[in-house]
């Protein structure tokens, strides 16, 4: 009895589904990417209209002030008197340092002004009151 040899099997990998695989990857990364938006305290930013965008992220340091008056810099709770030293260390290495003040709507000006006076002592004079666009 004679057997017929199967020789017509092609050994190439089909590339027809390649785009689908890449699209799947694209969608996977799109869905799973979460932008890290919050690294400080839980706050509600105030809104304003005449706002400008900060120029560079590298030269910006954040100070968070919660409505209870807690101050956080780089995920550490600070006392008012300690702000000066932390910021001064930053100011020494970066002459173009801008401080982005992220304070809660309900924060009291007493605490804000205390922090501002600390910034003045640390010679970090460029300040930015972080706000949201009004109407968003």
């Amino acid at each position, binding site marked *: 009895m004679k057997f017929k040899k199967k020789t017509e099997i092609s050994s190439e990998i089909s590339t027809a589904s390649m785009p689908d695989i890449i699209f799947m990857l694209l969608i996977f990364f799109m869905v799973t990417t979460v932008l890290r938006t919050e690294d400080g305290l839980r706050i509600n930013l105030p809104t304003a209209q005449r706002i400008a965008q900060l120029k560079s992220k590298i030269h910006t340091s954040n100070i968070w002030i919660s409505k209870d008056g807690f101050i956080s810099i780089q995920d550490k709770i600070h006392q008012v008197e300690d702000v000066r030293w932390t910021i001064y260390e930053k100011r020494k290495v970066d002459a173009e340092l801008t401080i982005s003040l992220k304070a809660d709507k309900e924060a009291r*000006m007493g605490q804000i002004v205390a922090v501002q006076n600390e910034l003045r002592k640390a010679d970090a004079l460029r300040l930015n009151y972080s706000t949201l666009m009004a109407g968003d």
Partner: protein
Amino acid sequence: MKKRRFKGAAIQTSSMADIAFLLLIFFLVTTTIDMDKGLGIILPAEGEIFEMHQKNILNCLINSSGNVLLGDEPIEVKNISRFVKEKMAQNENLIVSVKSHAKTRYDDYIQVIDQLKMADAKISIAETG
């Protein structure tokens, strides 16, 4: 003459992967994580005292319940911009000195600063006593 047989029109799919890659790279490159936005201000340096002519200073006081006193009279927050613009038309060296009570809400303060920014006024932050 021989009739040409119709073989079926197929779209080339071999370059599809490249197109998808290009899209992926395009979006990777053009995506910028949104930057911080806010009201910029320059604080006065420590120990720096300016002698200002009294007539160039416009005092803006905010009390603990968010009421604003501009010059010598109380004013609605939304009218500050217009009022300061008028004042600046009369005196272009005008500096607005903002003072707030220790118990003033930050939001009220930001609204006032926003109004002053809208009038392109020179803002000076006075220390609260």
